[in-house]
């Protein structure tokens, strides 16, 4: 398996974080992941990981369920509480079904019982990194869209909302009590400011921004 860190939007190198208390297993995981050219950083406990500040790169977390102190599942809840979207791959030596179900429900990428096949782990890691890339790209795009949207005048926002709803210029003008020409100008201005090529683009942006009603 060749796990690439190349992503169309994120050029920075990805990194895998490992939280595992068993020193030998920790070494083994680090070694295994490094063998496919991915950066690894390991921690013996959940709180060590929480204390560590992470760089803004695509990342995922390989997490042992049973840990001294804060358990892996508790760490997962804590990350969810903090709105930290880092994808998690659980590894465990004694997985039971309810525990597994709970973890997956909370968005775990994979749940691997020890011992596992190296292939399975690496595939899961690749999958997780891709997911993180996507999340980050969406996040970035949304931030950009919000910034652009912030530059629209209140009337341009109205026009954008109505156009996204599928109204023709004429209908929009009627709705807003103005002339069609004015609407055209305002629509063009909105598209320019939002960086939308077509009206369809504008409608999509509207959806992404959660404006469609």
């Amino acid at each position: 398996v060749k796990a690439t860190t190349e992503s169309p939007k994120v050029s920075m190198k990805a990194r895998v974080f490992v939280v595992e208390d068993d020193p030998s297993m920790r070494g083994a995981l680090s070694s295994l992941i490094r063998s496919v050219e991915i950066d690894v950083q390991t921690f013996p406990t959940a709180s060590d990981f929480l204390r560590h500040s992470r760089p803004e790169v695509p990342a995922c977390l390989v997490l042992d369920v049973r840990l001294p102190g804060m358990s892996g599942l508790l760490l997962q809840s804590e990350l969810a509480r903090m709105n930290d979207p880092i994808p998690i791959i659980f590894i465990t030596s004694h997985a039971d079904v309810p525990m597994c179900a709970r973890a997956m429900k909370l968005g775990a990428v994979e749940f691997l019982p020890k011992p596992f096949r190296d292939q399975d782990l690496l595939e899961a890691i690749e999958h997780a990194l891709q997911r993180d890339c996507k999340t980050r790209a969406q996040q970035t795009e949304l931030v950009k869209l919000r910034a652009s949207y912030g530059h629209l005048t209140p009337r341009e926002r109205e026009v954008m909302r109505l156009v996204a709803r599928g109204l023709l210029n004429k209908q929009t003008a009627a709705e807003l009590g103005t002339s069609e020409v004015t609407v055209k100008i305002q629509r063009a201005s909105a598209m320019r400011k939002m960086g939308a090529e077509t009206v369809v683009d504008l409608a999509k942006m509207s959806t992404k921004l959660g404006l469609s009603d």
Partner: protein
Amino acid sequence: LRPPTLTHIAFFRIMDDVKPSPIGSNRLHAEPSTDEHYAQAIVDMIPALAWSADADGSAEFVNQRWLDYTGLSVEQAIGWGWTAALHPSEIDTIVEQWRAIATNMLPAELECRLRRFDGMYRWFMVRATPSLDKAGRVVKWFGTCTDIEDRRRAELFLAGEKQVLEFVATGRPLPDVLVAFCNHVETIIPECHCSVMVLDSTGSAIEQMVAPSIPSTYCDGLPTNRRIDSEGGPCAMAAHRKTQVIVSNVETDMRWETSGWRSLALAHDLRSCWSTPILSSTEIALGSFAIYWRTTGIPTEEHKKIIAQFTHLIAVAIERKRSEEALREREERLRLIVDTIPGFISTWSADGRLETVNQRTLEYIGTTLDEVVFSGHGDFLHPDDRERMINAWSHSVETGEPFEVEGRSRRADGVYHWFHTRGLPLRDTQGRILRWYKLSTDITHLKETETALRESERRLRAMVDTIPGNITITDPAGEVEIATRRTLDDLGITLEELKHNSNRILHPDDLEMTIKKRQHSFETGEPYENQVRVRRPDGRYRWYFSRANPLRNAEGRIVQWYFLATDIDDQKRAEEALRKSQADLAHVTRVASMGQLTGSIAHEVNRPFAAVVTNGQACLRWLDREIPDLTEVRLAVKRIIDDGIRGSEVIERIRRQVKKEEPARCLLDVNEVVREISAMREIYVECPIPLMDLASSLPMVLADRVQLQQVLLNLIGNAADAMRPVTDRPRKLGIRTVLREPEVLVVAVQDTGVGVDPVDMDQLFETFYTTKPNGLGMGLSISRSIVESHGGQLWAEPNAGPGMTFYFTLPIQRGGGA
């Protein structure tokens, strides 16, 4: 000079009120006829000055009385000679008037002064009637002059008195009144000068002195604000002695030479002075009033009469003025009180209309009285209070019941304040309401405090209700009085149920103990503390930690008990679980069955195996690379080897435990075993980390490591249990190893716990004997068996201080090898 026959007829006509007097001897002429004689007599006898004149007004005849009065002769009087009797200042005007009357040819009257023979002028009323011929031309004028001096004087006196009293009545200042009075006196008594001296309200010092017709240097020369005595001058003396003081000749009277009054008076050409005290109706000296003359002299009887009249007048004026001032002062003071009182006062008409308010009220609402009266007071009330307050007011106006209401009124800056307003009616003797008086007090602070109090009570209530514990309040005997909402919800019962049988919710096993403890507290007042199981609405029992403190009154008597019960069930269970797992750990090798062990064995074994697999896979990946990374491979393989050793150790340990083989004794370092045990952190959850005092370079002993660990674990566990209830002193756990000569090693485990009752000491090591509620009574007996199987001894000794120390010995194997 003979009067015509008709003369007397004419006189009778105009003097119809005059009765003829008996005929006297006043004859003017020697040879009159009887008729004429009679007529002449009448004309001379009538008590009036009579005369007749030609059509042009020149006198043709005057009667004897006229001549007697004026002292003029007939010759002097006739023609226009009579004008000599007129007052020089009036001659021209009177002559002119008389000529006008003569021209008019109509009966007429005029008043003028006529000089008496002795030079005195008296006022007369002159009446004239024309006698006409057939052609209507005036033939003669007939007239009389009647003395009206007394009437005139009375009129003048009245006019003066009226003016003085008017001045008083219209509130003119006292000096004005006094000046008017003096002018009045000087009009009535010509040629005199008048002064009035007024004393202050105490009646002992001069307040002011007025003498309008004397240069001011006279008054200024008199000492003011000085206590009056008889030395100051006649005025002071008159007031002081309350008697009239007559100075007939200032020049020769030396009584006031020293005070300087004599020279002052003489300097102003005052030759005589008559001072009369002015006394109030209650005979208090108000001042004195004096008449001065440029000549020497004493008052005539007439003067005395007039002076008495004046004195009375000025006394009335001053007294009136005084009482007026006193009234005004009182009013002013009242006004000041009303305006400065820290309240808002208003008066209202009987039909409920606003009449007036005090200054403070106007300042508060920031407007004028007219505006308030005009716009109506409703404008200043808070819209939410307006209707209620106006209704209450209407009710009071209708029924006459006292008005009392609380409401908000707007201040000038638009802020509303709370007011408490009370209104009472003033009634006349018939009980009819004349007026209402209202007093409003600003109670905003009070209201705010009240609101804050209510708010804090609400918060406290919310706090009490949300506090994570159950609160109940009982009377001193333990009868439930109040329980928080939460408590009742938690127990699923009503307050009534709780009141009637609070014991029913307790676990039967805890009942007796709970009742005993409560009873003890209620009797002694000592705080109550208990752990008790309480039944919940679902029928399950949960552990509660219940505490109560008494509330005492000022005398120290208990009035209530406050109970707080907190749910400690989870804690309690966790505690039990912990103790159980501790026990499990210590007993696991002896007690646990194979099945119970499987889980933990699987985990223990799986760990090294999983690591081996992953390390192996990593190893292969490094080898599979184009250029294999042998460093990584070496590290991975090294880890695999370690895992292998770890795995086999685990398996060996399990095997030993499971197979219950004879203890594997080997030579070991006791210190090392102690250190291993101390490092097992999980046993110290409720136990302090041991302070270790280990003898250096101990010889090896032949012993079973696992069994030794068990003994140590058991002793540490006991120490922890013994120290758990201790809160008032430090909890200390000490482990000591000592080499005792010749060949015995001693291990001591020391605690600062509750110790052991001497009664229990003997049985301490017996199987199934326990002092602990949850103990099995096996720990110490097993430990003793283990120690004894090693050839040692296990015993306990109380410490010099609190707690116990357990000792066990192990024999030392000299010369190595078992």
